[in-house]
């Protein structure tokens, strides 16, 4: 992909993450799961980059590599020009406040023994922002920003609904003024009637604080709505990257076509034109690797990249 854009915030280059499933008696890996197998893409400052794919495609693993929750097997992740893969834990710390995460399940991602004030101020403690009296006001201001009230400061997670808990998670992520937020399936555990509330809020916060999002999801219609550009993952690789409307209107890779045509359309008169995924299109590894760019993707029209198939 073109590196000419000057405002690239996150640059992922040939990222690989292998998991060892078994070891033999000599400690050598016998079975290797290639969760992410050579993925390159860039996220521009202030945009939302959507990552879609089915379970096991490696989309969440990429998210976890970006926040260095996992150490990757190979490749580099540049954030604002710094190669995160080379940094040790101490050197990483400043980046840990600039990059935050919102997870899927607001029931398991909040410590049930902490009240809202403690939950939201925990990252502030770690990164040493807003000390003393400032603290409560800062937390209350954040709560207000995500649609909760000051009265909620001393309540515990079990007293909130799923949507409210996700708001707390968002406030917690924003507590240290991040620039980049990895949203891993942030709405899939929420009720349909509440999803739109949270999506609107994420969009408002993005505008207000100039945030950049990586939005990982399997709900394809919501991803189209929120993303500027979308990458489609399949079998640990990126098979297609394009602007979101372009991707949905003009999908090129057989997998993307099968995936998009399988979305159940909420319109009883829509005629299903489903493209069956007859057999998994096999990757031609050699072709993939010597693709036009270093990403293994060919640019077929400006900004629309697709893997050889």
């Amino acid at each position: 992909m073109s590196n000419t854009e000057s405002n690239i915030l996150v640059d992922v280059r040939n990222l690989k993450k292998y998991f060892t499933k078994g070891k033999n008696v000599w400690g050598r890996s016998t079975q290797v799961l290639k969760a992410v197998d050579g993925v390159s893409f860039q996220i521009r400052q202030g945009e939302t980059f959507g990552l879609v794919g089915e379970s096991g495609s490696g989309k969440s693993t990429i998210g976890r590599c970006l926040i260095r929750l996992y150490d990757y097997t190979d490749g580099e992740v540049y954030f604002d020009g710094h190669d995160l893969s080379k940094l040790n834990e101490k050197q990483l710390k400043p980046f840990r406040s600039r990059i935050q995460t919102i997870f899927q399940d607001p029931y398991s991602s909040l410590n049930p023994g902490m009240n809202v004030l403690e939950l939201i101020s925990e990252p502030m403690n770690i990164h040493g922002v807003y000390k003393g009296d400032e603290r409560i006001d800062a937390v209350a201001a954040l709560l207000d920003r995500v649609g909760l009230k000051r009265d909620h400061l001393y309540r515990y997670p079990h007293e909130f609904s799923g949507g409210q808990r996700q708001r707390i998670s968002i406030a917690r992520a924003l507590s240290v003024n991040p620039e980049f937020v990895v949203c891993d399936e942030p709405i899939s555990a929420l009720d349909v009637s509440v999803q739109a509330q949270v999506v609107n809020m994420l969009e408002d916060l993005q505008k207000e604080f100039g945030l950049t999002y990586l939005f990982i999801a399997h709900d394809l219609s919501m991803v189209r709505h929120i993303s500027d550009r979308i990458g489609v993952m399949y079998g640990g690789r990126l098979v297609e990257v394009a602007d979101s409307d372009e991707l949905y209107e003009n999908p090129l890779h057989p997998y993307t076509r099968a995936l998009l045509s399988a979305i159940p359309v909420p319109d009883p008169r829509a005629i299903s034109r489903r493209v069956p995924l007859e057999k998994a299109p096999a990757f031609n590894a050699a072709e993939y690797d010597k693709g036009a760019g270093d990403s293994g993707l060919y640019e077929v029209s400006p900004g629309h990249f697709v893997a050889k198939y």
Partner: protein
Amino acid sequence: MTERLLTVDSLKVSFDTRAGENQAVRGVSFHIDEGETLGIVGESGSGKSVTAKALLGLISPPGKVIGGEILYHGESLTGLSEKQWRSIRGNRIAMVFQDPMTALNPVKKIGAQMTEVIARHRGLKKAEALKEAIRMLSEVGINEPERRVEQYPHEFSGGMRQRVMIAMALSCQPELLLADEPTTAIDVTIQAQILDLLKELKDKSRMSVVLITHDLGVVAQVCTRVIVMYGGMVMEEGLVDDIFFRPGHPYTQGLLRSLPKRDGGSRERLVPIEGSPPDLINPPPGCPFIERCPHAFGKCVERPPLFELGNGQRAMCWLLDKEAKTGE
């Protein structure tokens, strides 16, 4: 004229919890005709799954059916003994659950699990039952069924396990199949295959299907009629076209409006339903949607009846009452 298969009248189910009585289903009435596919749509806590369980006599303590009637071919199912239920469950009404991994026995071969069910319900000998199991597996699109019956559930993918569940449910030739979120745990390309399979199997027989889901897309693609549940009540029912194009209830309207636009204006701001679903331990006495409804007015503190909108469409909203005075 199609025959009425099942009628649910003012069904009430509650669960005793430490915090009080959770009124999961609060007077639900609907019917299922022979050969139709009815969708039950609702979010978590709307009472849709509890309603389905009640149809199978599967409400167990702390849950209790506290009122209402279920008529199957005109005969009451309420108050049946466990033994009588067993002759209906599986034989005449079968169910497919959301998560096929927990519904299958992990240490028993697929073939053995299927023959057990078939032998019991249809009184076949073991060898015949196995033959029937193999036939059913190929019916639901599983290749090499003779080999697959010798495998364990973990050797099947999620989509294949759901096919096994459907094959098991259909092996007893039920009149009614209840599918509770059958594709929620499954990837979208596989979901499409499973939904196609359900449609195809239904077309081959006179079986009725009840599809319980929170996904309006799934409903639009598969169902002929829909009921929309919220806060333990039926807010609206009607043919799928009427529900999607002429929704009568503000909740249905809100749900449809909150979906992202599909073409062109995909980046338009979403229109959410503000607020959150009601607490069913202390539910609002009137319309359960009152706190989130943009049109709520004085009358809404009383529970509205279902108003007829024609074509079998009915909605539980005072706005549809010509006599009620709407907002000042």
